[in-house]
């Protein structure tokens, strides 16, 4: 980046994720997703339409009020983005907060 050339490793990786939890992204689910995001060094942004929040903050994720069926855009930027993207996509799409256990630990 210092020489003005695009840095492939820091290009954001993106995925669209649909909320499948029938209760939506409720408190426990949001806190669990944030905990998963916190395991990675990459910056994590989650968008719902024109609103974007830090995916490492469970409280900010709660402000999305993402209902079942909501499409969210997941954006991961950083050295471990390639590893983080599928794990975070799975966490966001989890059908229940309980099924997040293996990702959180």
């Amino acid at each position: 980046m210092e020489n003005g050339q695009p840095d492939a490793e820091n290009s954001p990786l993106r995925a669209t994720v649909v909320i499948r939890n029938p209760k939506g992204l409720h408190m426990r689910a949001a806190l669990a997703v944030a905990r998963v995001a916190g395991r990675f060094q990459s910056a994590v942004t989650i968008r719902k339409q024109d609103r974007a929040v830090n995916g490492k903050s469970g409280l900010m994720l709660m402000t999305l009020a993402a209902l079942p069926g909501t499409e969210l855009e997941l954006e991961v930027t950083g050295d471990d983005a390639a590893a983080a993207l599928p794990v975070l996509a799975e966490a966001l799409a989890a059908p229940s907060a309980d099924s997040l256990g293996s990702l959180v630990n």
Partner: protein
Amino acid sequence: MKNFLVRDALIPSLAATTKEGAIRELVGALQAAGYFRANEVDHVVNEIMRREGLGSTGIGRGVAIPHSRYEGLPRLIGTLGLSRNGIPFDSIDSQDVRMVFLLVSRPDQPGPHLHALETIVRVSESDEFINRLMACTTRDQIWELIESTPDPWNRE
């Protein structure tokens, strides 16, 4: 918040000093306001405590949102209790809780519950709101503040 908080169940100064005590006091206030039968209170309190067992709903900044789902309600209802001395709640920031927003939602209506969570998280981030809320000493003062605070998601 005026859409889900029950005015007659607001408690400007909780007597309880424990998490379960505060939850019982608030569910009791909802019962007294006509939302539960007396024999349903234990069940609702136990369900909320069971949820707390999965992870505290103390979200930091002195705020907690204990909650549960319950079949026998016409809609999402909630109430708010203020504690002058603070209540240990295992909050994420380890601070004692001074504002307890208790929610009971219908199992088939996730939307109102998610919007209520959003609203409470957003107002909790405002120092001005917290200061004004903690300055309230009567139910009427709390209700006046709630009525004058727009739900963030309603503005969209």
